[in-house]
C-alpha cells in the first residue's frame, strides 16, 4: 500500500506540475492581450473613443477586413493547399519543383511585396482590396502548403478506397471521408490566413485599404495615446481570443472524434496523368510569378542599379544583428516548445494541455504594433516589468520575447500535433527499460517531435527576420537591422535602395528554406513508411 500511495502522490505531483505549466503557458500567451484589456477597462468609456470608433469607421473597416480575409483564404487554399494534396497523393514529374515554388514566397515579407507591386504596377487593380487579398493569400500559401502536405501524407488512401468499395460516390466520399479528415488542417490554415490578414497593417496601409487594423492604428497614432490604443484594441482582442479558443476547442474535439492512427502509413501515391501534372506545374509557376519571381527580379535589378549607393560597411553588423535576434527568438520558442513536450502528457489525454497553447495564436491576430505597444506599456518606468528586466529592458530582449510570443504557434502547434501522435506506451516502455523520465521522453520523441520542432523553429526564424513593427517600436538605442532599413527606404518611396537589404534578408533565410524544402520532399518518400509522422506541421 505504501507503494501505491507513493505512486498516487507521484501522479498527483506530476499532474499538478502539468496543470501549473499549462496555466503558465496560457498566461504567457494571453499576457499582452490581457495587459491591454486591463489597461483599457478602467478607461473604456472615457472620452467616448470606443463609441466613436464603433459609430464611425469600425463597421466598415471590420467588413473590409473580413472580406479581404475570406478572399485571401480562397487564394491561399487554391495556391497552397491544393498543390500540397496533389503532391502528397500523386506521383508525377515536377513534384519537387511544385514544392519549391510553393515555398518560395516565404522569402518575401508582405509589405515588401506590396511595395514592389505598387512601384511596378500602376493599374488601379493593384491598389485595391482584391490585390491586398491576393497578396495575403499568396503570402500565406506556403504555410497552407506545409500544413496540407503533412496532413495529406498522413491520411491513408484506404479510407477513401473503403468508402468507394462500399458504393459511396465522389461527393459522398468528399463529404464523409475527405472533409472530416481534412477538417483540422483546414481549421489551422484558416486561422493562419485570418490572423495574418486581419492583423496586418503595413501592407494594407501601403495599398490604402481601410481595414480594421489600419483603423486601430490610425486612432492610436493620431491620438498618440496608449489608453486610446488599448481601448480601441479591445475590439480586436476580444474576438481574436474568442476565435482562437473556439478553434482550439473545435480542432481538439475533431481530432478526438476522428483519430488518425499514429502509425498511419503514408499515402500510396498514384501516378498523375501527364496533362494534369503539367497543368499543376504551370499553375504553381503562374502563382509564383506575383508571389516571388516578379518581386525578386525587380529587387535584384534595383540592387544592381543602386549598388554604388549601398553602405557596405553597415551590412555585416546588420546581418549579425538580424541573425542574432532571429536566432534568439527561435531558441526561445524552441525552449518553450521543448518544455511543453517534456512536461505535458503525450497522447492527447489532457484537453486543457492541448488547448491552452493554442492561445498563442491570439497574438498573431493582433496587429504587431499593438502587441509591441503592450510590451512598451508593460516595461514602463517604475513598472514591475521594468524592475524585473533592469538593464535588460534596454537590450533587444523585448524584441525577442514579443516576436517569440507572436510566432510561437508556428512551432507550438506542430509540437502539440507531434505530442498527440507519440504513444504514451513508448515512454512507459522506455521507463521500464530503465530510462529516466526526461530520457524516456527524449527517446520517444526522437522520430516525431524534434523534426516538427526544427521545422517550426525554421519558420519562426524566417518570420522573425521579416518582422518589422515590433523592431520599430521596441528597438534598443543604436539597433539597426535589414527590416528597419527596408522600412526607412520604402517610406521614402525608395524601394530600389531597399533592395539590397531585401536580398540580405533572403540570404539569411536561405538555409531554413532549404531545410523546409528538404523535409517536404522527404515526406512519404519511398521506403519511409509512416514518415508523415515525422515531419509535423
Amino acid at each position, binding site marked *: 500500500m505504501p507503494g501505491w500511495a507513493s505512486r498516487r502522490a507521484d501522479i498527483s505531483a506530476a499532474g499538478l506540475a502539468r496543470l501549473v505549466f499549462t496555466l503558465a503557458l496560457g498566461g504567457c500567451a494571453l499576457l499582452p492581450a490581457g495587459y491591454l484589456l486591463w489597461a483599457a477597462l478602467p478607461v473604456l468609456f472615457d472620452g467616448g473613443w470606443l463609441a466613436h470608433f464603433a459609430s464611425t469607421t469600425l463597421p466598415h473597416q471590420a467588413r473590409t477586413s473580413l472580406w479581404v480575409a475570406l478572399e485571401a483564404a480562397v487564394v491561399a487554399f487554391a495556391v497552397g493547399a491544393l498543390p500540397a494534396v496533389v503532391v502528397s497523393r500523386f506521383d508525377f514529374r515536377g513534384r519537387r519543383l511544385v514544392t519549391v515554388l510553393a515555398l518560395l514566397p516565404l522569402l518575401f515579407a508582405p509589405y515588401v511585396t506590396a511595395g514592389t507591386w505598387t512601384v511596378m504596377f500602376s493599374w488601379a487593380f493593384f491598389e485595391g482590396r482584391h490585390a491586398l487579398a491576393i497578396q495575403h493569400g499568396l503570402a500565406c500559401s506556403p504555410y497552407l502548403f506545409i500544413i496540407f502536405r503533412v496532413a495529406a501524407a498522413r491520411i491513408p488512401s484506404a479510407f477513401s478506397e473503403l468508402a468507394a468499395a462500399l458504393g459511396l460516390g465522389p461527393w459522398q466520399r468528399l463529404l464523409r471521408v475527405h472533409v472530416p479528415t481534412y477538417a483540422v488542417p483546414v481549421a489551422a490554415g484558416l486561422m493562419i490566413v485570418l490572423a495574418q490578414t486581419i492583423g496586418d497593417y503595413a501592407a494594407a496601409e501601403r495599398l490604402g485599404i481601410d481595414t480594421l487594423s489600419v483603423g486601430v492604428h*490610425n486612432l492610436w497614432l493620431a*491620438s*498618440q495615446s496608449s489608453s486610446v490604443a488599448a481601448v480601441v484594441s479591445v475590439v480586436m482582442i476580444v474576438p481574436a481570443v474568442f476565435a482562437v479558443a473556439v478553434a482550439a476547442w473545435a480542432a481538439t474535439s475533431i481530432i478526438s472524434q476522428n483519430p488518425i492512427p499514429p502509425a498511419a502509413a503514408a499515402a500510396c501515391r498514384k501516378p498523375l496523368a501527364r496533362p494534369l501534372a503539367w497543368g499543376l506545374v504551370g499553375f504553381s509557376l503562374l502563382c509564383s510569378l506575383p508571389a516571388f519571381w516578379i518581386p525578386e527580379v525587380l529587387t535584384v535589378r534595383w540592387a544592381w542599379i543602386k549598388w554604388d549607393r549601398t553602405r557596405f560597411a553597415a551590412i555585416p553588423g546588420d546581418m549579425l544583428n538580424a541573425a542574432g535576434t532571429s536566432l534568439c527568438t527561435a531558441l526561445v520558442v524552441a525552449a518553450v516548445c521543448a518544455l511543453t513536450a517534456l512536461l505535458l502528457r503525450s497522447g492527447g489525454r489532457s484537453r486543457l494541455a492541448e488547448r491552452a497553447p493554442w492561445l498563442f495564436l491570439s497574438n498573431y491576430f493582433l496587429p504587431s504594433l499593438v502587441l509591441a505597444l503592450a510590451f512598451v506599456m508593460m516595461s514602463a518606468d517604475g513598472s514591475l516589468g521594468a524592475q524585473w528586466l533592469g538593464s535588460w529592458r534596454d537590450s533587444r530582449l523585448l524584441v525577442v520575447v514579443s516576436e517569440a510570443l507572436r510566432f510561437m504557434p508556428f512551432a507550438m502547434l506542430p509540437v502539440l500535433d507531434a505530442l498527440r501522435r507519440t504513444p504514451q506506451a513508448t515512454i512507459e516502455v522506455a521507463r521500464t527499460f530503465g530510462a529516466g523520465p526526461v530520457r524516456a521522453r527524449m527517446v520517444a520523441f526522437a522520430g516525431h517531435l524534434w523534426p516538427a520542432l526544427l521545422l517550426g523553429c525554421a519558420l519562426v526564424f524566417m518570420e522573425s527576420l521579416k518582422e518589422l513593427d515590433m523592431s520599430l*517600436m521596441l528597438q534598443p538605442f543604436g539597433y539597426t537591422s535589414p527590416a*528597419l532599413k527596408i*522600412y*526607412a527606404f520604402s517610406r521614402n*518611396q525608395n524601394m530600389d535602395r531597399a533592395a539590397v537589404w531585401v536580398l540580405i534578408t533572403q540570404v539569411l533565410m536561405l538555409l531554413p528554406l532549404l531545410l523546409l524544402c528538404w523535409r517536404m520532399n522527404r515526406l512519404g518518400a519511398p521506403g519511409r513508411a509512416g514518415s508523415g509522422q515525422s515531419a509535423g506541421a
Partner: protein
Amino acid sequence: MADPKSRPTTTLLLAFILAASTSAVAQERVLRVISDRTDQGVVRPVLEAFEARSGVKVEGVFMDQGLVNRLESRPTEADVVITKDAELLDIAAQRGLLDPLKSAKIRAAVPSEFMDPADRYFVDAYRARIIFYSKARVKPSDLSTYEDLASPKWKGRICLRSGSHDYNLALFGQFFASFGEAKAKAVISGIGSNLARAPKGNDREQARAIYEGKCDVALMNTYYHPMMAAEPTQKAWADAVGVYFPSQAGKGTFIMRSAAGVTKATANRDLALALLEFIVSREGQQLIVDRTKQYSVRPDVAVHPLMVRLGAEQGLVDGRFKIDFVPLDLMAGKREEVIRFVNEIRFDAER
C-alpha cells in the same frame, strides 16, 4: 633603477592604457536621441555632423510611429527628442515629458514665434504644405486657396495621403484654428468628396498619381519636389508637377514644423543642449537646409536655391512666402477634433 630597455615598452603600455581609458571615457558619453524620423532620413546627417564636431557618440531610436507613447512609458531613456511634427512635441510637453531648455544660445538664435512659450521645445525647421498640380492638365491660374480645393470643379481630381496621417492632422488642425470650426469642416469634407481615390501612400505617391493621370492636384510638403527631382526613378514625377503656394493673396500658406527638445533625463543634459545648440547654429541650420530642403527658422540662413525656384512663377522672392502662422498653443485640442471629424466623414474610405 628601471631597466632602460623596458622604457619603450612601459611608455607604449601607458599610451595604450591612456588611449583605452580615453576611449572608454569617450564611449561613456553617449547621447541618446529618439525621433519619429526614419534612420535613413533627414536627421542622420545632422547627428553625424554633431558626432564629428563634438566627438560624442550619438545613438538613436528612429521609430516613425508611436514616439510619444514610448517617451511616455520611458521618459528618461533618451536625452533628446526630435520630431517631424511640432504638435507631437507639444503633446509630449503637455504630458510633462520635456525639461525646460534654459539655453541663451537657443533663445538668441530662434525667433520667438518658433519657441515654445514655456521654453520646453523649439521649431528647428519648417516646410510648407502646398498644392502640387499637373502641369499638363491644370493652369496655375486655376488655383488659389485651400478652401478652393473643396469646390465642385475639383471633383474627382484630388489625391491625398491618409487624413489620419500627422501631416494632414496638422494641416486640418490649422484649418480649424485659422478658418474656424464650421468652415474648416466644410473645407475638409469638400476636399474629401473631391478625392479621386481613397487616400493612400506617402506624399511622393501623390505626385506619382498626378504623373500617371489618376488625379490633377495634391497637397504635399515642399521639399518633396527637389527630393523627387534628385532621384532618377522619381524625376519624371517631379517634372510632371508644378507647385503652388495657396492663399498668398490672403492669409498665407500653412506650414509643417519639425521640432526638438530635451527630456527629463539629466545625465547628459549638457550634451543634449550642445546638440540642440548645434542644430540652431548657423552651421547646423545650413546643414538642415542643404540636406533636407526645409526652411530655416533663422532669418540669416537663406532658402535653398532649389526651393527658391519653387513659387517663382507666383512672384515669390528669394523663396520666401507668406505664412498663415498658427501658434502651437492655439492647436491644443485641435488634433482630437480633427481625428474625430475625419472618422465621422470616413475620409479614408474607399471610393
